[in-house]
Each structure stands twice: as structure tokens, then as C-alpha cells.
């Protein structure tokens, strides 16, 4: 009897569940290994603050969307599952945006830029399709948390280098001195790298991240 009870009630943070959170941070990182959510990773990484806001928004939508779809997983007809998932995500994002617009206008101004990018972020759809449709709500929530953080880490790392070398600032604070007044490093002839502001440089930065990640863990390497 007791054994059955244990089986039925898995501890909230069992080893398997913990893996749901830790795996996406490294071995199954949504951006570098699963290759999902690249568009937004390129679009919002020029500044650290934008990257942070975007990561938070995706994290929230991913967790809530995963839970909702997981709760509905036994009701959704297979034929129209994509439409259902998209509608859930889009409705969720629009409602949140509308509520923010009414009550915290300043936050909503920050976020409304990302609304379109969140709805079409393939991480969200990818996880709904690959995980939430087949798993229980709690596990789905953890999966959402893990993948959201894994995504955020990449965004923040890329944004760190892009903002530092592209604008000479971090979160808006001047690190290398002021470029227009020629103070700090700029007085010695240092110049910001304009290419760092353009989207192609994020591709190269992500590639370097992949390089480091895969050389530390050769099992992830792809053959020819």
C-alpha cells in the first residue's frame, strides 16, 4: 500500500524534476542546442535592460502557457493543436499587455514592444509542442522555468558583450567613459565597435558561446 502511495505522490523536487530545471541551462539549452528563439535573441540583445525585460516576459509566458496547455492536454484535438496553442499564447500575452497598459502604464511601454516577439518566439511553441502536450502541469511548469532561464542566460550574456563593446555601457552606466565628451578610455583613442550594435554580431557571439559550451562537453558535438 505504502509503495503505491509513494509512486502516486512524487516529491515536488524529485531528481527527475530538478533535471527539468538544470538541463536547459546547459545540455539542452533552448538557444544553443535546441536552436529555438533565435530571432528575439538577435533583436533584443543590444542593451542589457531590454534583454532582461524580454527574458522575464518569456519566462512568465512560458511557465503559464505550459501549465495551461498541460491542463488542456487531454482535451485538445490533435488536428488543430497548433492553432489552440498559438491562441492560448497570443491571448495570454494580449491580456497581460492590456492589463499592464491600464494599471502600470510605464511598464507596459517597456513591454509592448516585445508582444509580437513573444507570441512568435519558437521556444514557447517548441516547449508547448514537445513537453506540455505530454506531461503533467507541475512538470510542465518546471520545464518552462528551466527553459526560460536557459534562454535568459544566453540573452544576458550576449547583451553584456554587445552593450559593453558596442556602446561602452552596461545597463546604461558608462563603463569606458563618455564617448561624446571623450573621457576615460575614449581619451586614449578607444572607439566603440559599431558592428556590435548590428544583429550579425549576436550570431557570432552565440557561435562563440556554442564553441565554449561544446568544447567543455564533447558529447554535444555534432558530426559532419
Amino acid at each position: 500500500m505504502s509503495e503505491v502511495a509513494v509512486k502516486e505522490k512524487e516529491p515536488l523536487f524529485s531528481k527527475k524534476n530538478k533535471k527539468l530545471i538544470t538541463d536547459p541551462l546547459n545540455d539542452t539549452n533552448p538557444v544553443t542546442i535546441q536552436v529555438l528563439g533565435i530571432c528575439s535573441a538577435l533583436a533584443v540583445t543590444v542593451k542589457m535592460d531590454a534583454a532582461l525585460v524580454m527574458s522575464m516576459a518569456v519566462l512568465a509566458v512560458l511557465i503559464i502557457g505550459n501549465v495551461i496547455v498541460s491542463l488542456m492536454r487531454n482535451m485538445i484535438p490533435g488536428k488543430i493543436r497548433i492553432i489552440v496553442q498559438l491562441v492560448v499564447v497570443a491571448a495570454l500575452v494580449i491580456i497581460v499587455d492590456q492589463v499592464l497598459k491600464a494599471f502600470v502604464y510605464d511598464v507596459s511601454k517597456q513591454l509592448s514592444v516585445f508582444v509580437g516577439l513573444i507570441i512568435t518566439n519558437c521556444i514557447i511553441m517548441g516547449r508547448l509542442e514537445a513537453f506540455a502536450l505530454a506531461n503533467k502541469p507541475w512538470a510542465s511548469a518546471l520545464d518552462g522555468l528551466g527553459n526560460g532561464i536557459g534562454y535568459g542566460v544566453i540573452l544576458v550574456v550576449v547583451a553584456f558583450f554587445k552593450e559593453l563593446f558596442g556602446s561602452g555601457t552596461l545597463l546604461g552606466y558608462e563603463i569606458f567613459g563618455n564617448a561624446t565628451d571623450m573621457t576615460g578610455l575614449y581619451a586614449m583613442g578607444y572607439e566603440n565597435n559599431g558592428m556590435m550594435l548590428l544583429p550579425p554580431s549576436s550570431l557570432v557571439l552565440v557561435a562563440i558561446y556554442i564553441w565554449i559550451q561544446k568544447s567543455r562537453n564533447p558529447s554535444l558535438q555534432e558530426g559532419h
Partner: protein
Amino acid sequence: MAINKESNVYTVVFATLMVVIVGGLLAFVSSSLKPIQEDNVRNEKKQLILKAIGSEETKSITREDAGEQFKKYVVERLILDYEGNIIEGTRLTNETPVDIKSAKDAFAVDLKKEYKKFVQPLTNKYAGTDLVDELTKETNIHYPLFICEVNDKKHYVIPVMGKGLWAGVWGYIGLESDARTISGAVFDHKSETPGLGAEISKDFFSDQFIEKTIVDESGKYTPIKVVKPGTGVTQPYVDGISGGTFTSVGVDEMMNRTLAVYHKFFQREEGRQLLTNI
């Protein structure tokens, strides 16, 4: 399982239910929150107009206070047509409260609609001198003007609207009492790329416009160019946003197109009267 999930009947019923629930929910949320949202938007517009005056006093007004303070600073408002004539009955002083439903109230002019209805189809189709001709034919475009007074000095605030990379970009340009020199500018956008085009809303960009003039020595209208950083041009210019080319081009286009109309107004009798009437 009692119900066959894959049957067509189930699919159709599920889809209908979902559409009804989601549609209802969205419509409910959107309509019940609309008044509060509109209030926020209106107050923000007031705040931006006051900020564009460029005076220290009006710069620091918060959005919540802008609703009240607007009356104090904006002494007169009127609407122009494309030729720079005042449209009849649109000259209102601050004694008339703002009425967003009235077609005669300059504050009620929704630039986004003006832009979408007439200007955007035209700018899409024509360019350069053709565009100017085509716009002249279009008599139904409204151009609001806000006449402000700070410390007994007049300022003119001009709204501008155009398109960036993703969606609309807009701004308010404040002119000194001579209607030639820019005293302040603010820009905003709907959804430009963060860190690139979105930078136009930052002070470092808009402050570049301050003290630039929109006419040359001979009194001819010379638009201010928004150029790639580092390119020298002879006209007055400001540096665009690197990596935000489309947005910078949008700012350039809307300033160029709109300020020309107001310049025409200040050349006319009515406009000149306004200037001498300090």
C-alpha cells in the same frame, strides 16, 4: 474514452468553444480597461507636449500632473490644413476645456488616423516633389498647433507622425517664439527595436535638435536632416541612430514633411500676426 477526440464533430465544437471563450475574454478585457488606458494615453500626450516646449519648468512634469498643468501652459490651440491656413472655428483658448470628441479641437486630432488615412498611402506612392504636389491636393489633412506660454515667452509645439521600421514613430517639436529655432523635441515610437531604433526616445537623440533652425539665412525652409553618424552635410543635421537606419529615415521624413506645413503657416498673414503679438 467516452468522447472521440479526433472526430470532426469534437474538433469543430472545441474550436467554436475556444473562439467564443477567447474572443469574449479579449473583448471583455479590452472594453472594460479602455477608459483607463485612454486616460493614460491622453495624459501622456499632454506630458509630451509640455516636455517638447523645452523649458526646465515643463520638462519635469509627471504624467499624473500633466492633465492639470496642460491648461496652464497651453494657452491656445488651432488646426491648420496642408496649405497652412487655419481651419475655421478651430482656434480655441485654454478657457475651452479639452474635448476629445470634437472635430474642432486640436488636441482631439488623432495624428495616427490623419497619417494613415491620407499621408501614408501618398508617401508610399510618391517621393520628393511629386509627394508635395500630391499632398497639396489632399485638403483634408489636419495639422494641430499648440501655442504655449512659459514665463511670458511664447512657444509653438508641433506634433509629427511617421513610420519607423515596425510601426509608427511620432514626436513633438517645440519652436521658440520666432518660429524658426527649435527649443525642444521629444520622440516616441510604438515598437522599434530595443537598443537600436528605440533609442530615438532617449534624450541624447532628441536634444540634438535643440537650437537647430528650420530656415536658412535667406528665410527659405531648410529641413533638418537625420544622417548616419559621421557624414557631414551642409544643411543643419543631427546624427541618426547607428543600427537604426529605418527609424532614423522615418524621423527625417516626418519632420521634413510636417514642419514645411507649419513654415507655410508662419509665412502667412495669420501666422505673422501671431508672431508679432507677443
